[in-house]
């Protein structure tokens, strides 16, 4: 059980001093972070920087989900792990790195594959959910579990030189299904293992996910309209912010009369395995 507090300790004030003095954040913002719990799903390219920065920033309780183990080919981008941890659970490795930076953060490693059988109680026990996964099936799973649990979902993705960032199910904005009611054809989906990725691209997006989660926790910019931030690392204008639709009243998940009321089989829904490491390449 996660106990909230009414004031920060002196060691916390010393540690977070540079954030405490920020106008528009302050002691209250830091206390909001301390009393917030967040779940990062995926301790890979996106989850690595996200966990480092959220743990360091003073989030009270940080869950990290990953079923995979550290491999040498991860280390060009997953900078929360290191060479000596090859073969270790990624969730445990990430938790260890966060604890070394900030023992005040209560880190929980969930060394498991998130699926319809176990996702809902885990999602329900956190305030903000961060999608740092690498496949379409888990993205629909997280979306639906966040709608059912009433949690904002900070979604990031990265591939090759490109990245995308959106907050779903937050203050009247859309859910993932409002934008993408039908899963993409399996042959158009590729992951970083197969399509490749410039390591620092998920670095940028993972940092931005941490930022958005902090802004939600500290109630900064609550009046912002829903947007998607699009990152093209090899374009001369690297970022583009686009205005998104609101929640769709006819969405089968978050609409006025939802027809999905519990988690389904997302692997079948997407026609590709969430843990399948060799889907068809996009082209």
């Amino acid at each position, binding site marked *: 059980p996660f106990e909230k507090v009414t004031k920060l300790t002196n060691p916390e004030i010393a540690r977070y001093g540079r954030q405490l003095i920020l106008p528009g954040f302050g002691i209250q913002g830091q206390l909001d972070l301390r009393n917030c719990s967040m779940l990062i799903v*995926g301790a*890979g*390219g*996106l*989850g690595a920087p996200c966990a480092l920065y959220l743990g360091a920033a003073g989030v009270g309780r940080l869950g990290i989900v990953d079923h995979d183990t550290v491999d040498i080919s991860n280390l060009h981008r997953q900078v929360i792990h290191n060479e000596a941890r090859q073969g270790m659970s990624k969730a445990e490795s990430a938790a260890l790195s966060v604890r070394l930076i900030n023992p005040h953060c209560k880190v929980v490693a969930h060394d498991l594959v998130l699926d319809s059988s176990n996702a809902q109680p885990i999602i329900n026990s956190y305030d903000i959910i961060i*999608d*740092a*996964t*690498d*496949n*379409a099936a888990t*993205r629909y799973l997280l979306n639906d579990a966040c709608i059912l649990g009433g949690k904002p979902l900070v979604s*990031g*993705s*990265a*591939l*090759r030189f*490109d*990245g*995308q960032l959106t907050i779903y199910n937050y203050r009247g904005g859309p859910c993932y299904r409002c*934008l*993408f*009611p*039908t*899963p*993409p*054809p399996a*042959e*158009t*989906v*590729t*992951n*970083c293992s197969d*399509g490749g*990725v410039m390591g620092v691209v*998920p670095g940028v997006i993972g940092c931005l996910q941490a930022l958005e989660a902090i802004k939600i926790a500290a109630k900064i910019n609550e009046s912002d309209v829903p947007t*998607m931030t*699009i990152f*093209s690392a090899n*374009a001369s204008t690297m970022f*583009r*912010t*686009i*205005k*998104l*639709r609101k929640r*769709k009243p006819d969405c089968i998940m978050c609409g006025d009369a939802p027809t999905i009321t519990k988690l389904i089989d997302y692997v079948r829904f997407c026609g590709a395995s969430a843990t399948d490491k060799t889907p068809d390449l*996009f*082209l």
Partner: protein
Amino acid sequence: MATLNINLQFSGGMELLFDNQKSINVQIPSTFSDKAVEKHATNMRDLIAWTAENLVQERPELFLGNDGSVRSGILVLVNDADWELEGELEYEVQDGDEIVFISTLHGG
């Protein structure tokens, strides 16, 4: 025949369908007509069909859906806004518009 100057952009992997071009300036007719529909101002439905026919090099099923729209997993932007805000397929394309086709990414 009058034409519209449109800037098409491709991101998130869509550019792989367009000979790796991230931006293509095109001129398209300002009106379309076919058996089913009277002559009408060019809308997104027409632009998508025109793009599939004239620009997609191969495997148009990776661009087109079944209903005259793009396939699932592609988000379309009209001048930096989600096309759903503009009327989706019925949006009448304007001279100078910037239309972006983004493939959603799932990697992480």
